């Protein structure tokens, strides 16, 4: 993984608040703290979220400020506390549940898929479920098959849910605030490696980033790299290497898989005529497949060749370092594939 990257997140010029460099994890904590100060209906539930501040220490300090009534340690009952949050959301609160490892969303699928996602529609729009399910994602921590998956494709498949997958501290703070204020269930995926390793400029104080608006992380002419979450840093690293051999790569980050900003993806590819989609989820039946087909349908006549994809190898994430490293796309894989696509 790259060390903390300075260009991880661009701040729009109109932001007038002081801007500092903070980590992805600090940006998450700042968004939570500001939203909890703003709205007493926001409560945090999860395993070891209070004094421990979660296994990743991302929530450190929140219980001291907001107390144990709002930063609530739960039993190890993911389905139980997520189901409870659905009912609490329907009846006046804005709960945020913390799914320590994204792999554990397998344990809450009924609550999320059959309850949270459906309640508004099944009731003809009469009940609302304003809740956030924060989950981690990402491999390369040597945590093996049950603590390393990137399962954001699953909730993206379910109508009624919104899914955010920020890649930078700036996006993380702005998107998390939007998620908390949204009247729908939002699944919010945070890359574990990014917590401490990705640093970037973040304004102090309040700002939000709308869902369904992609961000062009780097402009280019020859190829569009559509990248999500952890893979944005990989794409940016690859783009710098490609620059040296005369290939100008544009990096587009959809930021939310649903709603999806199809227009920005298609427009970028119409300009560059080549597209590579990079995502850390399993390669088969996943996010890369959906994004590639959106591009293929929308920019078919401008494409110089098929849309290519890089995702995690379709294997359970292995433990042993050389095996695990072989499962996740790296900068070198991106560079090699783009050279092929550009005949260079």
């Amino acid at each position, binding site marked *: 993984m790259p060390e903390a990257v300075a260009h991880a997140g661009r701040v729009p010029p109109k932001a007038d608040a002081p801007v500092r460099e903070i980590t992805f994890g600090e940006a998450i904590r700042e968004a939570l703290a500001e939203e909890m100060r703003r709205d007493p209906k926001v409560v945090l539930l999860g395993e070891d979220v209070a004094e421990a501040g979660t296994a990743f220490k991302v929530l450190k300090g929140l219980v001291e400020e907001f107390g144990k009534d709002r930063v609530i340690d739960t039993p190890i009952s993911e389905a139980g506390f997520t*189901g*409870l949050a659905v009912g609490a959301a329907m009846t006046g609160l804005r709960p945020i549940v913390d799914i320590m490892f994204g792999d554990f969303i397998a344990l809450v699928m009924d609550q999320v898929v059959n309850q949270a996602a459906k309640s508004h529609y099944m009731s003809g729009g009469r*009940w609302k479920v304003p809740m956030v399910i924060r989950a981690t994602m990402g491999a390369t921590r040597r945590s093996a098959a049950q603590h390393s998956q990137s399962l954001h494709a699953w909730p993206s498949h379910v109508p009624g849910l919104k899914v955010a997958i920020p890649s930078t501290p700036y996006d993380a703070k702005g998107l998390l605030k939007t998620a908390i204020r949204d009247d729908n269930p939002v699944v919010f995926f945070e890359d574990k490696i990014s917590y401490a390793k990705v640093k970037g400029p973040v304004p102090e104080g309040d700002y939000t980033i709308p869902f369904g608006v992609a961000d062009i992380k780097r402009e280019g002419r020859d190829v569009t790299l559509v990248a999500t979450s952890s893979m944005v840093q990989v794409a940016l690293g690859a783009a710098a290497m490609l620059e040296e051999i005369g290939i100008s790569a544009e990096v587009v980050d959809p930021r939310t898989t649903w709603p999806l900003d199809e227009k920005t993806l298609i427009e970028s590819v119409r300009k560059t005529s080549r597209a590579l989609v990079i995502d850390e989820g399993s390669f088969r039946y996943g996010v890369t497949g959906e994004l590639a087909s959106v591009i293929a349908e929308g920019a078919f006549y401008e494409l110089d060749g098929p849309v290519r994809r890089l995702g995690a190898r379709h294997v359970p994430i292995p433990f042993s370092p050389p095996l695990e490293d072989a499962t996740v796309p790296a900068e070198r894989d991106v560079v090699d594939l783009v050279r092929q696509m550009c005949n260079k």
Partner: protein
Amino acid sequence: MMAIRLFEERVNDLYTRALMPGLAHLYIGEEAVAVGVCEALQPDDYITSTHRGHGHCLAKGAVPHLMFAELLGKEAGYCKGKGGSMHIADPGTGNLGANAIVGGGAGIATGAAFASKYQGTGRVSVCFFGEGALGQGVLYEEMNLAQLWKLPVIYACENNLYNEYTHYSETTAGDIMARPAAFGVAAQAVDGQDVRAVHAAASAMIDRARRGDGPGFLLLNTYRYRGHHVGDVARDYYRPKQEEQRWMADRDPIALHAAWLLAQGIADQAALDRITEELTAEMDAAVDYAMKAPYPDPGRVDEDIYA
């Protein structure tokens, strides 16, 4: 109770005449449970219901013509036709929704109790579920949370003896009452065919929960007169006809309560007949309203996915 009975008889009729799409799970025989519990609730208290939920919804205050409209998939229904028989929901009567996942209401009811306590609204939630839900692990996660945090929620277990087509003794190890006891949740077993007994037990539990003394568990022993759903007609392979006849003859909740009203001199037969007559007319009018109501425009299929 009579309103629920007459409602369900009309559901049966609509369904068997192929006028109602989908599935219909009748509550006939279990009326005293919904009525006894919901009569003990305030209008703004919450319930979660089940796939066999028409009785709960009516007892909590739903009106029959909007129920029938929903059951027939009409725009005028409680959920604009998007939910149907198994998903009646109505914020106006505190109905958080009927749930077609067995045990699916446990989290929602417990969460509503959490929000009630957090906001200090004093509202109590009742989670209705059948004994089949005792097989779902999430129910026990919720009972643990509710007791840990002293939440005002009542777990109302309707034991109608059958998990779909299987007697509960084949699916349920140990003693049902040992389950709430394991969490320290106050529990009581009640004759679910005796509406006054249900009401008395529910009232005590609900008052206790409202005072902040924590959750309760009611085991309501009852019987499902009909099949798992309307189409479940040949039932001999899982239960004898005589068993059904015995419950209907000796343990019918409406007959038992009518006999008590007459014996106490609270009502005479003419008064009871008049109630039945009025309810019959109301239900027939409700069916008529729903039959004539228009279907939703197909263009509305994309509405209400997101708030």
